[in-house]
């Protein structure tokens, strides 16, 4: 989808909405309010129906309606809390023990036990499953899952691994039934998934819709919503038309310029939330150039006016970040912002022996991947121009952008988003070590040592301190121009009561349908 075209079409739609009369609520939406059905419009369909197979946030968001996780996350504090596991403890440096909830049944009647946990993780780690979750960043550090008794299970890890608790609270830990997995096999379960979740699978019409119905025997009590349909509508203008015509009740990713059209429609309201997905401008030190010098990188942070970008380009729909982690991250510690200060920037450039008016930089950006990414990049170029820095903005197709970052072929700067970034290790380790796929910064011995240490600390207080120190170090090293957390914008029909979450999860167990 080209943003320029969608922008044009969006404005057309917005204009026509302002001009035309707003019709009465449609019959089908009223029917759904009575039967408590909710239809959600998404841009893409799921990539599988099998748990712990493909790492894709949208896919697994749909799947977690069918499968439960070992642990849940508190929607406010983002800390892990009980779900299928009632409690957990650290036995020793490389052993975690989970006590499982009793009396939980899968949709096929099979009881949920320690064997389900073992079968699920074994499936993820089996090379034959070709699961992304076998990678080191997911379950790769698990050596063995041991069944202690029916409701006690132990994870033995290859090294001390504090983030196991985070893994257990994410869709990394969607639990499958052991017996069905063995008897039916993954292919059959992919056709008709079986979980313990609040909704049962009904049908998946490829490229069209996924239909789920309420699990009346759900262990946390049945959901208020009786039926959830995910409809896949790739074009945003069509998705918006579907919302306004009453065909769908929740629309994800309303573009900022279409906000007014949603608000004026009378049928839906805008629901916004600060996201745990972050955007940043990488200052690449993994290749020769001026960004090797920390003073230059700091100067860039003083030269770019982040507040102005948020206000002018994003219309306020972003929340500024001052360090590498956002408050929605469990390991967040506050950091002092780089102030917009051209004089300070000039002084730092001078200190580094660089004349900004002779500086010519290249900035790589994707287009349409993150909110107004290309426009932000162009605005940054214009801001740097005020100091006389010449910036050449290169707009890349998404795949090319990733290739360039991976092969270290970008310019001195590139724009990228990261998330949902929910724990510190998941952001700091892959982005600030030189040998990581998408890093832009590395070869800092102090940072290398601190990252290695932080990722093995099991004690919560020691971990918090280690990540606080890391955030201070990263902030001072200025490997990025720290930008912001995205805001997620949803259009939600009047009869659906649902609050969006920072982790981009559309979670219908929490939704209520108010009959009108």
């Amino acid at each position, binding site marked *: 989808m080209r943003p320029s075209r969608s922008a044009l079409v969006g404005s057309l739609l917005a204009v026509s909405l302002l001009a035309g009369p707003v019709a009465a609520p449609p019959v089908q939406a009223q029917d759904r309010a009575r039967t408590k059905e909710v239809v959600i419009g998404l841009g893409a369909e799921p990539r599988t129906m099998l748990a712990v197979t493909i790492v894709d946030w949208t896919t697994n968001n749909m799947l977690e309606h069918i499968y439960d996780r070992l642990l849940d996350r508190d929607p406010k504090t983002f800390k892990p809390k009980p779900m299928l596991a009632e409690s957990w403890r650290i036995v020793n440096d490389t052993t975690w023990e989970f006590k499982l909830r009793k009396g939980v049944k899968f949709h096929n009647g099979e009881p949920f036990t320690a064997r389900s946990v073992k079968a699920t993780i074994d499936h993820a780690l089996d090379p034959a499953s070709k699961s992304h979750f076998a990678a080191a960043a997911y379950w790769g550090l698990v050596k063995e899952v041991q069944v202690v008794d029916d409701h006690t299970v132990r994870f033995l890890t290859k090294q001390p691994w504090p983030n196991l608790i985070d893994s257990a609270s994410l869709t990394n830990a969607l639990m499958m039934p052991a017996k069905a997995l063995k008897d039916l096999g993954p292919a059959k379960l992919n056709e008709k998934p079986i979980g313990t979740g609040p909704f049962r699978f009904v049908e998946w019409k490829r*490229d069209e819709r996924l239909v789920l119905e309420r699990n009346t025997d759900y262990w946390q009590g049945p959901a208020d919503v009786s039926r959830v349909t995910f409809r896949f509508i790739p074009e945003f203008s*069509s998705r918006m038309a579907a919302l306004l015509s009453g065909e769908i009740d929740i629309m994800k990713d309303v573009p900022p310029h279409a906000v007014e059209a949603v608000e004026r429609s009378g049928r839906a309201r805008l629901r916004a939330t600060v996201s745990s997905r972050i955007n940043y401008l990488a200052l690449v030190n993994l290749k020769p150039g001026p960004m090797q010098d920390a003073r230059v990188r700091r100067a860039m942070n003083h030269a770019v006016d982040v507040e102005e970008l948020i206000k002018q380009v994003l219309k306020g729909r972003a929340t500024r970040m001052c360090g590498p982690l956002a408050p929605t991250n469990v390991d967040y510690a506050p950091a002092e912002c780089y102030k917009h200060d051209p004089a300070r920037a000039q002084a730092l450039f001078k200190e580094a022996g660089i004349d900004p008016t002779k500086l010519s930089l290249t900035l790589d950006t994707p287009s349409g991947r993150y909110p107004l990414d290309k426009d932000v990049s162009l605005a940054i170029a214009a801001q740097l121009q005020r100091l006389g820095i010449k910036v050449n903005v290169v707009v890349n197709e998404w*795949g090319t952008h990733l290739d360039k970052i991976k092969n270290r072929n970008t310019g001195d700067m590139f724009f990228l988003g990261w998330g949902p970034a929910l724990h510190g290790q998941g952001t700091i380790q892959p982005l600030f070590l030189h*040998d990581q796929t998408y890093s832009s910064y590395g070869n800092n011995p102090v940072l290398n040592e601190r990252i290695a240490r932080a990722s093995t600390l099991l004690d919560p207080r020691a971990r918090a301190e280690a990540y606080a120190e890391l955030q201070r170090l990263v902030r001072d090293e200025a490997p990025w121009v720290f930008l912001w957390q995205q805001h997620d914008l949803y259009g939600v029909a009047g009869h659906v009561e649902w609050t969006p979450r920072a982790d981009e999860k559309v979670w219908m167990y929490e939704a209520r349908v108010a009959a009108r």
Partner: protein
Amino acid sequence: MRAYVLSRLAQTALVVFLSLTAVFAMVRLSGDPVLLFMPMDIQAKDVNEFRARLGFNDPLAVQYARFVGGAVRGDFGESLRYQRDALGLVLERLPATFLLAGTALLLTLFVAVPLGIVSAVRRNTLLDHVGTVATVLGQATPGFWLGLMLIYLFSVQLRWLPTGGTGTVAHLIMPSVVLAAFFSARIARLTRSAVLEVLGEEYILTARAKGLGEGRVIGKHTLRNSAIPIVTLAGLEAGQILGGAVITETIFAWPGLGRLTVQALLNRDFPVVLAAVFFISVMYTLVNLVVDLLYGWLDPRIRLR
């Protein structure tokens, strides 16, 4: 005749093989396929492991041989993105694709050909001018714009038709109209000029002189003689509609082959791209074979050898 068809089928196989080879080479030039389906926090070691397991580290010649070996057995491999049989993904989309393409093609022929004939016969009348303006508009209107305006009018304002998806006849109306609009314009213009040309022929004068009614003159003598260019264009367009209704499919959330193909290209999902190209090239060449056979029927002077 049978020898002709057989040799054409052999040619079809060759064309399909060559287009697959060309696409194979082109997609391999487009970049690393592994990054786009792997999560972003994956480590380089794991990326390499996946690449090796999927055979992308082998020399290109080996990969090509493996691909050809699989393709002749109808095995295009597993979709990188969906971890499912690529051919299966393509086959699932065919019914929706055929339904939309067939409806659009019928709509095109039933609207455009009569419109072209009437314009030619009533040349320089108001009807002809209206027809000309309509065809120019039809050709100049971008499909996505027409689609969105129809959605706005018939779905958002009037609430007569659904915005997208499949299921009922109502779902089919807007996408097929949008798809037919562009092609109708071209066919109507071509029909008009082809009919005009034939109307100037002496045998039409003869037909009229011997007292044939206007219906027979137009229906039999004119239409059949001006049919060859129309059928040629219709054949080319049928091929295009089958493979390339991407924009229409995207706007109307229609689960067709075009959308799948473009998504697969953007995601570098090579097995799906190749399976789709296989079907599109087979259909394209077969439609053109049918067109060539029609020539012989339309104009018996044409001998197919």
